[in-house]
């Protein structure tokens, strides 16, 4: 991890319609770290990711990559640095898995920095990383939801970004592939790639992220290591859930016990 920040949010506020989605958020991301963005629904996780990817302009404040404000980049310049994996998994035509993954090479085509042989190599590697090589030539719409999610992640990897932004990439994946995906992000981090992932599974976040950013009501509640951020008291305050935080063989474990407000179970949860 180097000290020079790769991406920065500086006093960023985002208003969508009448609603203030993010309020005065300042954050820095460094090369080679995996950052998990956690928080309840509506906390502003997706908006923060879209701001970083340049898909939304901030109402106030500055978003920078490599210490340059985003508006000074062309869309293609951003695309060669930042990959964004949306939460909604849209695939509109029944193209082959390989063709979809190859879409990740588009920014490099447009800038003329690609060769077909190298593209094919990168695409093959990305498919292997996401364990989708066996159905590389099948129509992507014939796959299951989890398989499609892996195809789309492979597309983002094929983009070879320095900053990988993924909105709930583990949702819908089976357990093995959830772990594999997080391990892939760690492996990429070792070669300097920064990943910022919105995630609901606090266990995965605590186990694989270098840093956790806890967001609630459009503001940063805490940022730092899992031990610092995900304390039972803070989880209760933010999520309204009484959480048992422990660890098994050094792996952090989060067990929700009961909601403390809002959502009351109709029958007592047995222990």
């Amino acid at each position: 991890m180097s000290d020079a920040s790769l991406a920065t949010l500086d006093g960023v506020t985002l208003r969508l319609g009448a609603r203030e989605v993010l309020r005065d958020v300042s954050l820095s991301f460094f090369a080679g770290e995996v950052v998990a963005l956690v928080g309840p629904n509506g906390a502003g996780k997706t908006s923060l990711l879209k701001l970083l990817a340049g898909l939304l302009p901030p109402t106030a404040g500055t978003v920078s990559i490599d210490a340059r404000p985003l508006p000074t980049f062309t869309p293609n310049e951003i695309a060669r640095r930042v990959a964004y994996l949306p939460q909604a998994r849209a695939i509109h035509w029944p193209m082959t898995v390989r063709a979809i993954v190859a879409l990740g090479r588009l920014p490099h085509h447009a800038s003329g920095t690609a060769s077909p042989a190298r593209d094919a190599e990168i695409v093959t590697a990305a498919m292997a990383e996401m364990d989708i090589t066996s159905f590389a030539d099948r129509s992507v719409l014939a796959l299951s939801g989890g398989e499609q999610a892996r195809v789309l992640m492979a597309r983002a990897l094929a983009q070879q970004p320095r900053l990988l932004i993924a909105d709930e990439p583990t949702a819908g994946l089976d357990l093995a592939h959830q772990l594999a995906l997080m391990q892939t992000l760690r492996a990429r981090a070792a070669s300097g790639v920064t990943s910022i992932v919105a995630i609901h599974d606090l266990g995965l976040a605590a186990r694989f992220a270098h840093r956790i950013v806890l967001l609630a009501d459009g503001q940063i509640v805490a940022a730092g290591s899992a031990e610092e951020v995900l304390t039972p008291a803070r989880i209760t305050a933010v999520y309204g859930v009484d959480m048992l935080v422990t660890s098994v063989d050094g792996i952090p474990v989060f067990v929700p016990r009961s909601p403390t407000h809002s959502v009351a179970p109709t029958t007592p949860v047995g222990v």
Partner: protein
Amino acid sequence: MKTTAFPMLCWLAIAVACAFVLSLSVGPGLIGLSGDAAARVLILREIRLPRALLGAAVGAALGLAGAALQGYLRNPLAEPGVIGVSGGAALGAVLAIHLGLAATLPAAIPLAGLLGAALATLLVVVLAGEGTGPVPLLLAGVAVSSLTSAAIALALTISGNPFAAAESVFWMMGSLADRSLPQAALAIPVIAAGMAMLFKLSRTLDALTLGEDAAQSLGIDLVIARRWLIAGVALSIGAATAVTGIIGFVGLVVPHLLRRHVGHAPGRLLLASALGGAALLLLADTLLRLVSPWLDIRIGVLTALLGAPFFTLLVVRMRQELAP
């Protein structure tokens, strides 16, 4: 199965070349040429050449614009007519003619056609709003299309022209019959310019396969892409419609027929659809002259007649694939 579209593109190009030659060699009810030497030269150069050139150019524009719109909207039912572009173009041309603009400036007809196409497209875009999905856009297109066809009928009726009905049929059903070289010379450069704009969208359309957010994150400027699309469709379809009227179905059916042969990639579909559209329109127009030299069957009627069975086949195949 590695899908390379190159062999198919070659076949399509050969088909266009053959259809072009065939179109030049077929006259009303006959293959070859009749008349004396002078008449043959006149017929070939002034009647059949502009017809074949326009058939190829207009067919290519229709196929390409259909493929581009289907890719952009991610809706396989889109075609220039569905979103009101060709109706707008026809209305523009009709108004230019009936307001006397065409008499002062020959280029007024294609210019007014593409202006009408642009205005109709903008109206549709404004009505539908951005990022609202295909249904509002198609509904807005239906609204604008009926508006333009009503306005065309109205303009022709109040013009007091005793041939208003015949003229309506021309604009609504299209025709390549007896178009002239000057008309072709006027329309084809504009069609080509619009098509060049649409070909630039190849990467954009591929990226849009993953939705607008992902496309943007792949470095696509969607605002600019939308402008290219609107300008490209307005220019190519506007100029085409201004000289041949509204020719339906080609823009809808050609991308459908070719999509699976390019691995469903919307970018690669562009060139294939342009070639396919040119071949289909040339062949349909040639067939028209052979089977009904004395009946004024409109090209739009024939393309729909030929297209319907293809579409039916597609539906049947789709049902078989969906069947449990």
